C-alpha cells in the first residue's frame, strides 16, 4: 500500500465538514422538521424538568418551613399534630449541655381576610433562640407587658396587615379550633424569617394566647433546643432523648423532611412515571425525526462516502447532530420547564395541601445540577434515539444511492426484528414479574421503570407487524372506489417499518392517557366504595370545606351533644385525625368510637379473633391500615409503640383492615382511649346519622343555625362528601391531566413531523400519482387516510400497551408506593374509542402538510430534487 494511502486525517475535522456541508444545509432546508425534532427533545426534557422542580419545590416548602421556624435550633422535639407537653420545656432546658429551650405552637385561624397562620412563643423566655426566629428588632410591639397580659394581642406581618387594612389597635374576628375569638393588632412584624412563610399571612402571639386560640392548652407543637457552645453534642443528645422518651421525637430540624418525603412519595412516584413516559414518547419522536432526516440525506451521505468520508465519520456526524438537538432541546426544555413549574406549582401545592400537609409558599428554583441532568437527559435520549438511524447510515448502500434509481429505502421487518421485538416485550414483562421478588423499594421501582421502557420499545419494534395486519384487515372491507384509502393502504403495506417511530410515539402517548385514566378510576372506585362501606354518613360537620383529614381545622368536642340534640339526628360520631410519628414514620392516627367500627366495620385483612373490637374498646389495642402494616411488616397480635402525652404506649395490633384515609397509613384508636392518652378534646369532623324521619336539608339548616354564630362550620351531605373525595383525587392528578394533554400534543407533532418528512421523501412518487391518476382532493384523501390508518394502529397498540401498563401501575406501583390495594378498573369505553380518537388526531395532524402537498404545482412535484 503506498504511503499516501495510510495518511489518517483528523476525524474531528471530517465530522465538522460533514456537519457543515451535509447536515446543516439539510437542517436549514427543512426548518419546520428541524424545529419539530427539537420540539421532541424540548417537550421530553421540559416534562422531566418541570416534574423534578415541582417535586423539589413541594418538598422544599415543607423543609424550608421547618427550618425557618426552627431558626438556629440544633435539635427539636416534636410529636406530629398533637405536640408535646409544655411542661417538658423546662425539663429540657435544665438538661446539661442545653443552652436554651423554648416551646412554640403554630396553627391556622380563619379571618375574613383569609387564612392566618399564627405562631405562639413565650415572649419572656430565653431570647437566644427566639432572636433567630423573630429577631427583636423586627418585632415592633409598643408595650410588651400589655401585649402579654391581654389574651387577645397579636402582632401581624406588616404587608398582610396593610393588605387587610388592619392598623394598630384594630380588632378583627378569627375562628380557630377553640371557636371564635376577637383579636387586636398590637404590633407588627417585618417580613423576615417565619413571617415570610404562608404567603406572608402570619401573626405572632404570646404562647398562652396562641394555645388558647388553637386549643393547645398545656401543649406546644415543638420544643426548639440550642446546645451550649462547649456541649458534647452526642452526650447531650443522649440525655435529651432519655428526657423526651415517650413524649416526642428528638431530631435535628434539618433532618425532619424525611417524614414529608414519605408523605409526598406517592405523588412523586406518579409524577416520576409521568415524566419517564413523556421522555419515552419524546425519544420515539426524535428517533423518527432523525431517521427521516437520514433517509432524506442518504444520497448526500452516499456521495460523502464515495468521495472519501469514512463510515465512522458519517455515523459520528449523526450522533453529533443528535447530541446538538439534545443540548439545544435540553436548554430550551429547562427554560420552559421552569415556566411550566412556576405556573403549576400552586395547583400542585394546593392539591398536596388538601390531602397531605399544608406548607408555605412553594418556590421553584433551578440549580446547576438540574441543568446538568436536563442536558444529560436531552443528549442521552437524543443519542439513544439516533442509534437506529446511525446504524442505518452505516449500512448505507452507496452504489444504490449514487445510481439515483434507488427506490425509497425499505427496512425489512424480518424474523430477526420480530424476534427482537418479542424478546424486548418478554424482557419488559420479565421486569414486571420480578418486581415482587425484590426487597429493596428502589430496586422495585427501577424494575418497574425498566419494564415500562423496555416494553414500550418492544411494542414499538413490533408496531409494523400490527400495522401490516391492520392494513390487511382494512383492505378486506375497504370499498374499491375509495381510491385514496386503497392507495394509502397499498403504500402502508409496502413499507410499514418506516411508520414505527410514529406509531410508537402515538402508542406510548395514548397508552399513558389510558393508564392515568385507569389509575384514577381504580383509585376513585376503590376509595368511594370504601367510603360507602366504612365511613358513609348522612351529614359531615367540620370547620372548613376540606375533607376530614389532618389538614382540616378541628372543632371543639363539646359540640357533639349540641348536634345530637337536634331533631332528626339519630347518632353523632366524632372523628379525630392527627398526624403522628409511628416508628419514625409519619402516619395518621384516626380515632372514632368503637361503636362506629361495629356499625360500619372496615374490611378486615387479618385480626386476632372475632372479638378484636373488645380489646380495641378497652384501649389496649389498635387497628392498623393494611398499608401501614405492610410498611412495618406488622401482623395482628404484634405490638406497636406510640409516644403520647401520657408517655410511651405499647398497644396490641387487634386487626389489620383496608383503609384509604391517607396513603401514608393509618393507625386507628377508640376515641375514648385516644382522649384518655392524648388529652385532646378536639374533633376533626362529626359524622351525623339521621333517623328515619330526618331530612338532610332540614337537619343541615338546624345545625348551621345552632353552631354558626359561634363556630365557622361547614356541613356537607354524604353525596357532597363523596364528590369532595372525588374532587380531591382529581386535584391530586391535575398536573398529570395536563401532561396527558402534552403527551397527546407530542404524538400529534410526531404525525406532523412524519408527514413533513414523508412528503419530501415521496415527492416524485406523489408527483407521478398526480400526473397519472389523482386530482388534488384524492391526493389529500390518500395522505390523510394514511395518517388515519397509522393513528388507528397507534390507538390499537395503545390499548394493548395501556392495559398491562395500567395493571402494573394500579396493582404493583400503588402497592409499592402507598401499600394500598386497589381494585383494577380499566376505562374500556375510552379504550375502545381510542383507535378512532387517535386516528382523528393523526388525520388532523397530517391535514396541513397533506393540503400543502396537494396544492403544490405539479411541475415542482415531478422536478428534480
Amino acid at each position, binding site marked *: *500500500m503506498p504511503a*499516501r*494511502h495510510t*495518511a489518517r486525517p483528523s476525524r474531528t475535522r471530517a465530522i465538522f465538514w460533514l456537519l457543515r456541508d451535509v447536515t446543516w444545509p439539510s437542517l436549514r432546508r427543512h426548518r419546520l422538521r428541524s424545529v419539530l425534532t427539537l420540539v421532541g427533545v424540548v417537550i421530553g426534557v421540559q416534562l422531566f424538568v418541570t416534574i423534578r422542580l415541582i417535586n423539589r419545590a413541594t418538598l422544599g416548602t415543607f423543609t424550608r418551613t421547618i427550618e425557618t421556624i426552627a431558626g438556629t435550633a440544633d435539635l427539636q422535639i416534636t410529636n406530629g399534630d398533637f405536640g408535646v407537653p409544655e411542661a417538658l420545656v423546662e425539663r429540657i432546658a435544665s438538661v446539661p449541655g442545653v443552652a436554651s429551650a423554648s416551646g412554640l405552637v403554630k396553627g391556622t385561624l380563619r379571618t375574613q381576610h383569609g387564612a392566618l397562620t399564627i405562631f405562639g412563643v413565650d415572649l419572656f423566655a430565653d431570647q437566644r433562640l427566639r432572636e433567630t426566629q423573630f429577631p427583636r428588632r423586627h418585632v415592633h410591639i409598643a408595650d410588651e407587658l400589655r401585649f402579654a397580659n391581654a389574651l387577645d394581642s397579636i402582632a401581624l406581618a406588616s404587608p398582610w396587615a396593610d393588605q387587610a387594612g388592619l392598623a394598630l389597635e384594630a380588632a378583627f374576628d378569627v375562628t380557630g379550633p377553640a371557636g371564635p375569638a376577637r383579636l387586636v393588632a398590637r404590633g407588627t412584624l417585618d417580613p423576615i424569617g417565619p413571617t415570610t412563610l404562608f404567603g406572608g399571612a402570619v401573626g405572632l402571639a404570646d404562647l398562652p394566647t396562641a394555645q388558647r386560640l388553637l386549643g393547645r392548652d398545656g401543649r406546644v407543637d415543638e420544643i426548639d433546643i440550642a446546645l451550649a457552645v462547649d456541649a458534647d453534642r452526642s452526650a447531650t443528645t443522649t440525655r435529651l432523648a432519655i428526657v423526651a422518651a415517650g413524649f416526642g421525637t428528638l431530631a435535628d430540624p434539618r433532618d425532619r423532611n424525611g417524614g414529608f418525603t414519605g408523605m409526598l412519595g406517592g405523588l412523586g412516584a406518579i409524577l416520576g412515571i409521568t415524566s419517564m413516559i413523556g421522555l419515552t414518547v419524546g425519544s420515539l419522536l426524535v428517533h423518527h425525526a432523525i431517521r427521516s432526516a437520514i433517509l432524506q440525506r442518504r*444520497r448526500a451521505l452516499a*456521495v460523502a462516502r464515495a468521495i472519501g*468520508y469514512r*463510515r465512522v465519520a458519517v455515523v459520528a456526524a449523526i450522533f453529533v447532530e443528535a447530541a446538538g438537538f439534545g443540548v439545544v432541546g435540553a436548554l430550551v426544555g429547562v427554560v420552559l420547564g421552569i415556566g411550566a413549574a412556576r405556573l403549576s406549582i400552586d395547583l400542585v401545592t394546593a392539591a398536596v395541601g388538601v390531602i397531605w400537609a399544608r406548607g408555605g409558599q412553594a418556590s421553584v428554583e433551578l440549580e446547576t445540577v438540574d441543568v446538568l441532568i436536563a442536558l444529560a437527559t436531552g443528549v442521552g435520549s437524543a443519542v439513544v434515539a439516533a442509534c437506529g438511524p446511525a446504524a442505518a447510515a452505516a449500512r448505507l448502500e452507496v452504489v444504490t444511492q449514487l445510481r439515483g434509481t434507488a427506490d425509497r429505502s425499505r427496512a425489512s421487518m424480518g424474523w430477526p426484528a420480530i424476534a427482537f421485538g418479542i424478546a424486548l416485550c418478554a424482557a419488559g414483562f420479565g421486569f414486571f414479574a420480578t418486581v415482587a421478588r425484590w426487597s429493596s423499594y428502589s430496586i422495585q421501582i427501577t424494575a418497574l421503570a425498566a419494564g415500562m421502557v423496555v416494553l414500550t420499545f418492544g411494542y414499538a419494534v413490533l408496531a409494523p407487524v400490527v400495522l401490516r395486519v391492520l392494513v390487511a384487515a382494512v383492505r378486506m372491507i375497504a370499498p374499491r372506489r375509495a381510491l385514496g384509502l386503497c392507495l394509502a393502504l397499498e403504500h402502508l403495506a409496502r413499507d410499514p417499518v418506516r411508520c414505527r417511530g410514529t406509531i410508537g410515539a402515538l402508542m406510548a402517548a395514548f397508552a399513558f392517557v389510558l393508564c392515568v385514566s385507569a389509575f384514577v378510576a381504580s383509585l376513585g372506585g376503590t376509595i368511594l366504595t370504601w367510603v360507602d362501606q366504612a365511613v358513609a354518613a348522612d351529614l359531615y360537620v367540620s370547620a372548613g370545606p376540606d375533607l376530614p383529614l389532618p389538614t382540616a381545622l378541628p372543632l371543639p368536642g363539646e359540640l357533639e351533644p349540641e348536634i345530637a340534640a337536634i331533631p332528626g339526628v339519630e347518632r353523632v360520631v366524632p372523628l379525630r385525625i392527627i398526624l403522628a410519628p409511628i416508628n419514625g414514620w409519619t402516619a395518621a392516627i384516626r380515632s372514632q368510637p368503637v361503636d362506629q367500627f361495629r356499625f360500619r366495620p372496615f374490611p378486615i385483612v387479618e385480626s386476632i379473633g372475632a372479638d378484636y373490637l373488645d380489646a380495641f374498646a378497652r384501649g389496649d389495642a389498635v387497628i392498623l391500615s393494611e398499608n401501614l402494616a405492610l410498611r412495618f411488616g406488622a401482623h395482628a397480635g404484634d405490638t406497636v409503640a406510640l409516644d403520647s402525652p401520657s408517655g410511651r404506649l405499647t398497644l396490641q395490633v387487634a386487626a389489620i383492615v383496608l383503609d384509604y384515609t391517607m396513603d401514608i397509613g393509618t393507625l386507628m384508636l377508640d376515641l375514648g382511649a385516644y382522649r384518655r392518652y392524648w388529652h385532646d378534646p378536639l374533633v376533626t369532623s362529626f359524622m351525623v346519622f339521621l333517623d328515619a324521619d330526618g331530612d338532610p336539608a332540614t337537619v343541615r339548616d338546624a345545625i348551621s343555625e345552632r353552631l354558626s354564630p359561634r363556630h365557622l362550620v361547614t356541613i356537607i351531605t354524604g353525596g357532597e362528601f363523596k364528590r369532595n373525595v372525588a374532587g380531591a383525587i382529581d386535584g391530586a392528578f391535575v398536573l398529570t391531566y395536563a401532561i396527558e394533554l402534552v403527551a397527546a400534543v407530542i404524538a400529534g407533532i410526531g404525525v406532523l413531523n412524519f408527514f413533513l418528512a414523508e412528503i419530501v421523501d415521496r415527492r416524485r412518487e406523489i408527483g407521478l400519482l398526480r400526473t397519472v391518476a389523482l386530482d388534488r382532493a384524492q391526493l389529500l384523501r390518500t395522505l390523510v387516510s394514511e395518517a388515519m390508518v397509522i393513528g388507528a394502529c397507534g390507538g390499537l397498540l395503545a390499548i394493548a400497551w395501556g392495559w398491562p401498563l395500567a395493571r402494573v401501575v394500579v396493582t404493583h406501583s400503588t402497592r409499592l408506593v402507598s401499600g394500598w390495594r386497589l381494585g383494577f378498573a380499566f376505562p374500556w369505553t375510552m379504550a375502545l374509542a381510542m383507535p378512532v380518537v387517535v386516528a382523528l388526531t393523526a388525520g388532523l395532524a397530517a391535514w396541513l402538510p397533506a393540503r400543502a402537498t396537494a396544492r403544490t404545482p405539479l411541475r415542482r412535484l415531478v422536478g428534480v430534487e
Partner: protein
Amino acid sequence: MTMNAVTLRDVAKIYRRGVRDVVAVQCVSLAIPRGQFVALMGPSGSGKSTLLNMIAGLDSPSSGEIHVDDVALSMLGDDELTDLRRTTIGVIFQLFNLLPSITVAENVALPLRAAGVVAGVRERVTQALSAVGLQERMDHFPEELSGGEMQRTAIARALVIEPTIILADEPTGSLDSETGGEILATLRRCVDERGVTVLLVTHDEAAAGWADRILGMRDGRCESGNLRRAALV
C-alpha cells in the same frame, strides 16, 4: 511498481435475488496501463457499472482479485478503501451527485476536507475548477448550473485530489452531445496533460471514440479491446 493502474483477475459478482442468483460480472480479467483512457462499452445490464464500482471499492467482488496501484482491494478494510478513494481514485457519476445546498467550490473541496487537508484548499479548488473552465462559477449553487457545468463540477471534484485514476460512470449520459463532447475533451486532457488513467463506462460509441482503448461487456463478460486511439495516432 507495475505498469498497470488497474488489474483484474477472474473477477465475478453474483447478486442473490430471492432464491436465485444473478450473475452481474463473470470471470473478468483485464489490465489497464497507467495513463491510458479506456472505454468500457456494453448494453444496459451488461455489468459495466458493477465492474466500475468494484474497482472504486464501492462494491466488492464475489470472487477474483482487483489491484489498484498495486494494492489488492480485498486486503483493504472499509477505511482503507475510503482512503484510496480520497487519494488515488476520482469517481464521476452520471447523475453528478453534487450536494445542492453548498456552492460549487464547496462541492469541489469536499474530498480535500474528507482527507483532512487544511492548507491551500482554496487554491487547489480554483485550480481544479480552472481545469474544467468553471472558475467563474465557483460561488454558484448547483441548481444555478447547466447539466454540463454540473458534470464539469463533478470532474473538478474528482480532479482536486490529483488522482492517478478517474472512474467515470456514463458521465455524458444525461447531457446533450455537444456538452458531452466538452466533458469527454476534459477527460482526454486529464490523460494527455496529467497522465491520469481514465476508465469510462458508456454505451455511446461517440463517447468511446475519445478513448485509447475500448472494452466491450456483454452478459457480465468482458470482450477483448483494442487501442483505438493509438491506432488513430
